[in-house]
């Protein structure tokens, strides 16, 4: 990965060296980089990595929510997971993550393109996209359940008004996960739109001019020119979207409480269940460790893979 000193295959112009020689210059650069990175990394190391190691460690111990006593049990917690619906939870998480990341990313790009057009209403509509981010999730999730209520909700009322059959959005185990994905997408797409619009508008003027002069239209314009240029944003959106989806809990808790039965019990919800319904912190730590491992793997894969789409050199 030669990101910093190489750009589009061209080496950077050699810079004047200061100080007493080669070693000192490089060390000053390193020192500067470490210093810049330190606040973020230092605080992360203290307040997240250290507790994270704590969790990984405790996943091999038995424990309960209120007790200070722990005893080493090796892989017993992981075995419990497998026996008590952990695999199903991971499967549900996979479906949820894929569904959410695809919808939120694709709709994010689509809405960003749409709202980037010089139409008169776009600025007002762009404003509505931050509503889901501003309003507390406890309120929006409750409203969502009311809107999608099978008997009284306006969504089903609208469906029957236009002649389509009513759908049991939240009560049908087959539909419930989709409804939760829809909520999460609605909630999250505004963030993606903001980032993609920023990326679209950062495309240099010359590139846009050139494309129009060349007569490139519609899809080809998008695929060949626009998409590669917004790839850095695409990487962020996809990676962060995946990480967020793997952790999704609050909206599931409010909208379906993991139900119907276990249709929306994702791994993160399973973690909560084990800790607060079964009081079994060993099992919840084990599932958390699994979530962590999978998320890390996905992140590594995605950053390497996606950056290649943009022409290499990034990621």
């Amino acid at each position, binding site marked *: 990965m030669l990101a910093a000193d190489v750009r589009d295959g061209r080496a950077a112009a050699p810079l004047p060296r200061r100080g007493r020689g080669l070693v000192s210059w490089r060390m000053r650069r390193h020192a500067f980089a470490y210093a810049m990175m330190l606040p973020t990394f230092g605080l992360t190391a203290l307040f997240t990595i250290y507790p994270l190691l704590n969790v990984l460690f405790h996943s091999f111990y038995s424990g309960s929510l209120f*007790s200070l006593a722990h005893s080493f049990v090796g892989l017993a917690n992981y075995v419990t997971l497998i026996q008590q619906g952990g695999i199903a939870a991971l499967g549900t998480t996979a479906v949820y993550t894929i569904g959410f990341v695809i919808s939120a990313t694709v709709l994010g790009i689509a809405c960003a393109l749409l709202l980037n057009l010089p139409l008169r209403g776009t600025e007002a509509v762009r404003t509505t996209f931050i509503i889901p981010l501003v309003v507390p999730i406890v309120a929006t999730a409750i409203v969502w359940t009311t809107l999608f209520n099978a008997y009284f909700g306006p969504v089903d009322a609208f469906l029957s008004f236009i002649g389509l059959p009513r759908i049991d959005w939240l009560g049908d*185990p087959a539909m419930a996960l989709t409804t939760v994905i829809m909520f999460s997408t609605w909630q999250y797409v505004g963030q993606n739109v903001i980032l993609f619009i920023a990326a679209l508008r950062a495309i240099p003027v010359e590139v846009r001019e050139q494309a129009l002069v060349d007569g490139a239209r519609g899809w080809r314009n998008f695929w060949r020119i626009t998409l590669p240029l917004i790839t850095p944003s695409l990487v962020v959106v996809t990676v962060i979207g995946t990480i967020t989806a793997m952790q999704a809990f609050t909206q599931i808790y409010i909208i379906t409480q993991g139900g119907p039965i276990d249709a929306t019990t994702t791994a993160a919800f399973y973690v909560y269940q084990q800790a607060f319904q079964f009081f079994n912190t060993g099992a919840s730590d084990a599932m958390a460790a699994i979530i962590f491992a999978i998320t890390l793997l996905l992140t590594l894969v995605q950053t390497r893979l996606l950056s290649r789409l943009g022409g290499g050199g990034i990621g």
Partner: protein
Amino acid sequence: MAVSKRSSAVAVLGVASILTTALALGSGALAAPHHGAAANKVTITMWNTSTGPGLVALDKTVAEFNSTHPDIHVNNIFITQQDQILNKLSTALAVGQEPTVLVGDVPSNGPQELKSGKMVNLNAWAHKTVDKLIYPKQVAGCVYKGVQFCIPNGAGDYALYYNKTEFAQAGIKTPPTTWAQVVADGKKLTDPAKNRYGIYIPFGTTEWTVWTFEGMLWANGGQFLNRNNTKALFDSPAGVQALTVWYNCLYKDKVAPLTSFSTPQNSDGEQAFASGLVAMLIDGSWDLNTFDQAKVNYGVTYFPAMRQFATNTGQGSIDVFNTGAAQVKAAETFLQWYLQPSVQVPENAAVPGSMTNEPAVNNNPTFIKDQHKYMNVFFGDLKYAHIRPTLVSYPAISAALGQQIDEVLYNKETPAQALKIAAQEADQILKKNGE
């Protein structure tokens, strides 16, 4: 390109962040809570999860105590909503920041909370003072392995609400007394085209579903666990029959709606009854006020019988944590004052649908007069009430059983299958935990 403009922007940013941080740190120092000025005054922290009229009444009562007891100050704080209390309490206990008193816990958390070693054993004090004011069965629900770990606070059972208007329209003269009658009435009341059903069956994997199922079980003469609490007995034929009644309401007789109205906070399905979707609802006295507000023309009758009448009681609890000898003593003084009927009557009379744990209060004429007119039904049903076992395993058993009941209610398993699986899981849990 105004480089100076941009660097001044950065400078402004930097100064702003420094100022804000300084303000924050300064205010942080100022925000430190004062402790009582008087030298001998003991301050205790009390957390509550009360809301609405209950919170208003509690605040008023505590203020009265503080003004009449100059040597004790009870710092009453609404800490969070009830379903977040485990988050807050577990972290507080882990760092030694627990309150002295917690109002709004539930006894089923107690055996687990005892493991923290910080709960006060109330035997010595409570037996001599407040326990005799409270229904004995409820006191027993707060005892685990001989240790009383909490004091019951707030009680409830459930009965059957029915919509008088709907009943009149369907030509039903009297409310049902047995489940067979519920089904028969339900058939007359159900009209899917008009979004009308007979009764709401409690979907959801929360304790509510299990709590109401237990009433069905007991009404059919079944038992939850065996006498020694070593084996589950709810998969007996009585239990299977009881669960089958619910299943039939949904899929055979079709007198119940097929969707869940459960929320994270409660699963009783109040919205279904308030909206007129169902004409009957299993619910407790706390929703009397709700349906008054929703302007439903309702009546209340005993929880329907099968072989006998039964219902379930549940309660909230008050915990005391060992934050210091002086504070525990002060807490006991406060609680002894708080639980006397002369205090409990006015506090609970102000909260519609409130059922207390004390016979002296529930039978007090002033309380009866000021309370809701249908409270007598809930009190009457109380004589048929059973109580859940107080065990370390109970939360896990309930979670397992709730999941299986839900499988039946969503037509994924038969009642016999589900209860058998749940009983096996319960036996394993009991074996693992020792009881």
